[in-house]
């Protein structure tokens, strides 16, 4: 038995060393028979597979330790036991076939589940062969691990295939032929779409047949570089698909064989046409906006919300603040003088926090060229996750200047007009005063002389009677003329103003009006003598005179009250009547009277207020400041 086993082993060793799992090296040199038996025993003792010698019925004659262990027995326990009953789920027909094969000298292989002594099972592989002495030598191997690995491999391969077929990235394999050409092996569906090729038709074709002649040199160069460098190559390949130029990004990865020679290239591709177009569009848009930003006549800047450092500023902005781009870089808005101090920016930030935006925030500051005014409009924006302020600054200095110049010009004009009116009124008063004086002092006095000379003549007893009558008539005429001169002169310039002072002159006016006015006149006049210089006093006189004139002419009043008060810092005149009120559209001449009042109030630096409604009377109130103390 031992010999046959030996020879059998010896025969098989060189032919199929790995298939039987028996080490090949002891068989390299012939040994002596005794040595052989010894070796054979050792082999059996140490083999990892179970080795059994059975008779044709499957009763165990001999088993090695590994075999006993596989089935859960001691070696001695196993001898005489039927081996076949440990084969689980084997049909009698199958057993019969196996037996026939054994008898006919063929090797039988049974890959089944085997049952251990304790009833548990394991996947195993039993290889049996009939020996020349009629016994059967069987080798049993536990294939649990192998099965598991095979199952795993099967699953892994399926998964890889799924990935390959469904990958959103194009994958292809190219074989590097000995002549240096690149032969397409396979490509997944996404790759087909990317390159516009057909998997089944392209397989086996050289890539120079797949690409148009004008582009193949470039493509082949990438592949060659991958082979030569032995490193992945990143490249972009232009393809024409359905008459449209597309751009495909490819990563070429060299695959080496066991000797480290690059035999294959794996390619990973995806179409980047859309991406490139979007990028180009974005770039173009960015460029456009950048140009707009920088060329904008409006001053624009972007600054950090918290720190205030300037991130971007366009030329207009720099011009307004008199800075260069280099000066602005890395500095804050306070630093470059947008804000006079940090507090000013804090106030602005407070407004930003409250409202999220600011409209027409007024900024003014001094520059060597004069004061400047700007309107700031700001919006809070996010840039790369950073809170920023987008500011638009509108320089309105020119506008403001023009505006203030216009205002100043208008004010100058107004002042000139006022001063002209004042001079006109003053010169009118002076002229009246002069004419009144002339009338009074010259004409009046001459007339008085006439009346008095006539009186003298009449006093003479020797005056003939005929002349006496004439002289009396002349005297009467002259006296009338005097009265007329007095009336005219008084109207031009009330002598009381000069003789008695303003307060008494006003009282005299009221007293002279009262008896014939046709209304009841109440008055209270505070003493305002000395409160105003004499040329100003005339204005008060004329204001009251004009008010009374209006009442006399139009009001049909029954009661009139005049109140003149001297307060601490001002004088107030109130003239109130219960007449018919001022019509909304007063006649031109009356309007003149009111305008005259208004002019004189303005000369006094005071305020005029007229409350009137038809039927409820008129209340005129003038308040004018006392001249400052000197």
């Amino acid at each position, binding site marked *: 038995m031992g010999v046959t086993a030996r020879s059998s082993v010896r025969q098989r060793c060189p032919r199929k060393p790995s298939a039987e799992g028996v080490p090949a090296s002891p068989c390299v040199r012939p040994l002596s028979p005794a040595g052989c038996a010894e070796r054979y025993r050792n082999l059996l003792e140490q083999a990892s597979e179970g080795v059994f010698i059975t008779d044709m019925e499957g009763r165990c004659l001999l088993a090695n330790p590994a075999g006993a262990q596989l089935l859960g027995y001691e070696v001695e326990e196993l001898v005489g036991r039927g081996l076949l009953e440990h084969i689980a789920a084997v049909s009698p027909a199958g057993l019969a076939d196996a037996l026939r094969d054994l008898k006919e000298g063929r090797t039988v292989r049974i890959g089944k589940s085997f049952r251990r002594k304790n009833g548990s099972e394991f996947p195993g592989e039993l290889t049996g062969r009939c020996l020349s002495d009629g016994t059967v030598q069987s080798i049993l191997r536990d294939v649990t691990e192998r099965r598991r690995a095979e199952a795993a491999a099967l699953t892994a391969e399926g998964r890889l295939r799924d990935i390959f077929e469904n990958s959103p990235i194009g994958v292809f394999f190219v074989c590097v032929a000995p002549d240096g050409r690149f032969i397409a092996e396979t490509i997944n569906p996404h790759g087909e779409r990317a390159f516009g090729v057909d998997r089944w038709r392209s397989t086996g074709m050289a890539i120079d047949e797949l690409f148009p002649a004008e582009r193949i040199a470039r493509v082949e160069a990438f592949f060659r570089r991958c082979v030569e460098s032995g490193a992945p190559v990143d490249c972009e390949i232009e393809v024409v698909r359905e008459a449209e130029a597309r751009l495909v990004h490819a990563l070429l990865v060299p695959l080496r064989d066991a000797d480290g020679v690059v035999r294959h290239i794996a390619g990973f591709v995806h179409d980047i046409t859309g991406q490139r177009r979007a990028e180009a569009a974005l770039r173009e848009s960015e460029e456009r906006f950048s140009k707009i930003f920088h060329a904008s006549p409006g001053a624009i800047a972007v600054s950090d919300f918290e720190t205030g450092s300037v991130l971007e500023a366009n030329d207009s902005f720099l011009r307004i603040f008199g800075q260069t781009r280099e000066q602005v870089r890395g500095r804050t808005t306070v630093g470059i003088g947008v804000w006079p101090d940090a507090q000013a920016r804090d106030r602005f930030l407070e407004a930003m926090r409250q409202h999220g935006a600011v409209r027409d925030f007024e900024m003014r500051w001094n520059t060597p060229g004069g004061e400047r005014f700007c309107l700031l409009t700001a919006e809070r924006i996010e840039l790369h996750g950073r809170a920023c302020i987008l500011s638009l600054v509108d320089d309105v200095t020119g506008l403001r200047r023009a505006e203030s110049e216009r205002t100043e010009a208008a004010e100058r004009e107004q002042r000139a007009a006022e001063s002209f009116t004042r001079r006109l009124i003053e010169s009118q008063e002076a002229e009246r005063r002069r004419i009144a004086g002339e009338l009074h*002092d010259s004409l*009046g*006095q001459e007339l*008085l002389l006439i009346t*008095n000379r006539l009186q*003298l003549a009449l006093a003479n007893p020797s005056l003939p009677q005929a002349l006496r009558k004439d002289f009396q008539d002349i005297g009467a005429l002259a006296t009338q003329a005097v009265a007329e001169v007095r009336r005219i002169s008084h109207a031009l310039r009330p002598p009381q103003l000069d003789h*008695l002072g303003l307060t008494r002159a006003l009282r005299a006016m009221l007293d002279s009006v009262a008896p014939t006015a046709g209304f009841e006149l109440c008055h209270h006049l505070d003493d305002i003598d000395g409160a105003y210089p004499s040329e100003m006093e005339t204005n008060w006189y004329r204001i009251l005179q004009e008010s009374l004139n209006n009442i006399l002419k139009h009001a049909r009043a029954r009661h009139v009250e005049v109140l003149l008060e001297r*307060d*601490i*810092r001002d004088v107030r005149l109130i003239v109130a009547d219960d007449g018919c009120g001022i019509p909304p559209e007063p006649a031109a001449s009356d309007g003149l009277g009111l305008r005259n009042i208004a002019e004189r109030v303005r000369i006094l630096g005071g305020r005029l207020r007229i409350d009137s409604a038809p039927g409820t009377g008129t209340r005129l109130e003038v308040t004018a400041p006392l001249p400052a103390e000197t």
Partner: protein
Amino acid sequence: MTMPSQPTTPLLVRVAIVDDHPLFRQGLRQLLAGDPRYLCIGEAGDGPAALELLARERPEVAVLDINLPGFTGLEVARQAQGLRLPTRLVVLTMCNDEETFNRAMDLGVLGYVLKENAVAEVLESIRSVSHGRHYLSPSISSFLVRRHSRAESLASRQPGLDDLTKAERRILQLIAANKTSREIAAELFVSPRTVETHRANICAKLGLRGSHRLLQFALENRSAL
């Protein structure tokens, strides 16, 4: 009013003429020259000259125009009053309004003659005033009647709050609140000097002497202020 010594009246009455119109002065001079009772002792053509003449010559009577260069005849009368001159005044004027008349009367003028009646009335007016009597042109004598009735009502009433200006009443109010001039000035945003002026005017108008009397008056009238 001090009466001049009676014995001088039979003698010449010394008269000064004040008028800015030379022809008018000449006429008056002629009139006076024609009456042996009167002697023209000088003439003046403006306010200051008139005052100087009166002070120097101390005439019994002065015939005084109101409308004068320099200052007015009424001002001459006021200052003459201050100088306690013996001169009685006849105002000879074109002004025939009541206020001017009253002012003249207030200043102790005895004669008021309108110029158109000068020849007929001036000698008579000089005679009247030289005897310490009033003389008024007939056309304005009604003023005197009204003046008398007004003077009576004025005499029957004490000077009071009504005579004060609003500013003065305000000051008085603060005096009643026991504030010093300085405090009043601070409260009204005026200078202490202005307050002092107001106080002086109040005292003058009400005939009060001293700040104690002023405070007393202010407190008594506090409710009416």
